[in-house]
């Protein structure tokens, strides 16, 4: 692991991606303290102010400071995405590994069900779930987590299948180890790496999916400053106040790029073949 980390920080992807993600995390942690203005403070006089020394990102239709809102919004957007992906990752890893280890009809049943869920495009799936549970960021997290799980299961399972045939698993069986020991101690540790890679890339998707849900009015709710929500609220002002949309839109893109780069960096670092 450590030497693969070395390769990660040596690769440009790893550096840029890691940097962007780090920045994002900083925003998440320190956002409220860094924000120059109260994110929801209205100002009748300061509406539609273009970016300037006072308001770096400009102000919106209610005279709220876009920069501050973006800073606060990082929390909703990123934490939610990370949370959703993390849940999906854990579920996926466990289900996938178990499915691969048990094999036979259990495996078949699990995977076909996953296929079924995958057959419903994740956005649509999230849409249905949110419509069912009611709109709120928490439900959006649940929706995305569920929508992501099958993908994770697939990845985890494919790796687990390879691991399953390894002699150390056979050795464990010959020794008479318990199923739980084999799955948890012998197999899982050898599966996490690829799952983490997949997960990192998925975070980027989650960020965008969140934005899209909010755009459709199904994700975070006003006055929250979740980035997707900001963008969708700003769309109607695009012609009069483009910055309102561009700034949070840019942030979404940057964070997504960050996680994509990091994910690919990790993949290369963990994949000996692409190491040169």
């Amino acid at each position, binding site marked *: 692991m450590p*030497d693969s980390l*070395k390769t990660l920080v040596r690769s440009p992807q790893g550096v840029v991606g890691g940097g962007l993600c780090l920045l994002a995390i900083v925003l998440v942690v320190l956002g409220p303290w860094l924000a120059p203005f109260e994110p929801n403070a209205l100002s009748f006089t300061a509406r539609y102010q273009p970016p300037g020394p006072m308001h770096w990102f400009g102000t919106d239709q209610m005279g709220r400071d876009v920069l501050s809102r973006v800073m606060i919004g990082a929390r909703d957007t990123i934490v939610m995405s990370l949370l959703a992906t993390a849940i999906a990752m854990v579920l996926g890893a466990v289900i996938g590994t178990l499915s691969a280890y048990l094999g036979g009809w259990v495996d078949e049943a699990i995977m076909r069900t996953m296929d079924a869920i995958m057959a419903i495009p994740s956005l649509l799936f999230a849409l249905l779930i949110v419509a069912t549970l009611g709109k709120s960021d928490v439900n959006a997290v649940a929706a995305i987590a569920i929508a992501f799980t099958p993908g994770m299961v697939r990845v985890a399972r494919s790796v687990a299948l390879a691991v399953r045939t*390894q*002699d*150390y698993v*056979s*050795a464990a*069986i*010959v*020794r*008479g*180890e318990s199923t739980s020991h084999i799955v948890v*101690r*012998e197999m899982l*540790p*050898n599966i996490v790496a690829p799952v983490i890679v997949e997960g990192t890339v998925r975070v980027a998707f989650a960020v965008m999916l969140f934005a899209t849900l909010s755009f459709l009015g199904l994700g975070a709710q006003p006055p929250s400053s979740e980035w997707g929500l900001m963008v969708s609220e700003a769309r109607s002002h695009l012609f009069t106040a483009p910055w309102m949309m561009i700034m949070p839109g840019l942030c979404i893109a940057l964070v997504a790029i960050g996680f994509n780069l990091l994910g690919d960096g990790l993949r290369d670092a963990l994949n000996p073949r692409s190491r*040169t």
Partner: protein
Amino acid sequence: MNDALLRIDDYSLSYTTAHGSLPVLDGVTLSVAPGEVVGVVGESGSGKTSLAWAIMRYLAGNAIEHGGSIQLQGEELTTLKAARLRALRGGRLGMVFQDPSAALNPTLTLGSQMLEMLTRHRGVSRGEARRIAIETLGDVDLKNPESMLARYPHELSGGEKQRALIAGAFACRPACLIFDEPTTALDVINAAQVLELFGRLREETGVAALYISHDLALVSRIADHVCVLEKGRIVERAPGRKIFAAPDHPYTQSLVAAVPNPRRRLVAESEIAAHANARERPPLLTLRGISVDYGQRTTLARWLKRPDPRFRALNPFDLEIAHGEIVGVVGESGSGKSTLAKALTGLVNHRGEILLDGEAVSSTPRGRADYRRRVQLVFQHPDGSLNPRQRIGELIGRSYRLYGLPEGETLSQAVARSLEEVRLDPTLASRYPHELSGGQKQRVAIARAFAARPDVVICDEITAALDVSVQATVIALLLDLRRRHGTAYLFITHDINLIQQIAHRVAVMYRGDRVELSSAEELADGPKHAYTRALLAATPTIASSARVIDDEFSAPTMDQE
């Protein structure tokens, strides 16, 4: 030797890695005369494959050459233009790889892959190329070449692939061919056929060849001259027939010593006597009609009238293993020898019964646990059988956790002792497998098995992945452990030479049948079964090459009797 066809002069090569520069070849000098076969022998890491790549001018991005020259028919290769080089490769300078299935593109037919070569280097039309291809395939006696051309690689056996490839290489009228372990991936008998083919073709074409291999015995049989490569330096160059008779360099001597010689028994007669009187006791392990079927037929499959996928990997098999006895099981891949190991350790379901000390293994959990402790398994590849994410300590400790610690020992003490028993530094306990060498890993695997204080250890090809010298030490270790604990071994291998050295009795397996079961002596005096004889004939041994030495006039091809 100015008439040399291929000449390498003081050639050095190194790779730049994260940990600095790593020398691979150091002042290598050798030459191949027209029609001559030069063998290059070395253990893993000796740089023999890098040498091949260097000659083919196919070097990794991080390779750095430190002077020296490589000349083919007087033409300097190290400074050759890419276009000229492409014209050379596959044409005058051909190469045959170790693994034929890896060398063939899985999504293209054999035909298209042969034809593109012929059209390129023989400058003939596709039709003509096709004719040649069919002809060549024909005279490397592959059945109906026509259809062969239309087949995909996965539809051919390993032997067929390699023969086709060799045929193709020769068909392009090369001046010099480089063979990189061409038979290592094949079974003994296939290998023998390929070698025979090789011999015949070069008889006919008089091609010069550089033959790279780790197998001293084999090389000594086919090569006119043998170069011994150690850590990138050629330490000895001698005629193939001499190299065993009178190795000069100590390294070569150690190599020769390590090569299993069926004539030199490693288990002393006294021990055999010892285990003879052990025969009075009920046999330690008794196998009655053990048979294994693979694959099952699903209702869906039956419903779709698909061919029955079930096949019998092991036909009813009987065997008795006495306390402290070493029983060898020898056979090619697919002979069912590994299946036997799986069956005995419960990795696959089997019919028939297993008796331990004359009693059927009880199906109660305790009974099975007891059996599991007393019958241990060591796998072929330590990289596979040792979980890369666990420390050596944990790996060995697992046995103690499951089967209990000996009195008055802490876990760490026990682990340390186990490591010492296999002659490893106890401090390795805190390391991860990938930090150990192949031999060390296998020792750890053995230590883990013996931590269970077993009565019988099943060794499934445990030395196949190791260099000869390492193999020799591991074997020595096993015999030593046996001496100490009186453990019996079921020793599964494809190497009939090795088994003749260490086994008291040998079971020969062929296509799931036990075709012969006889004591080592009997085997030496003359095997009963035809297959056994074929196997022995196909296996190059020091003995056979020694015989070659006796007879100066026989051609340096392999001898069938």
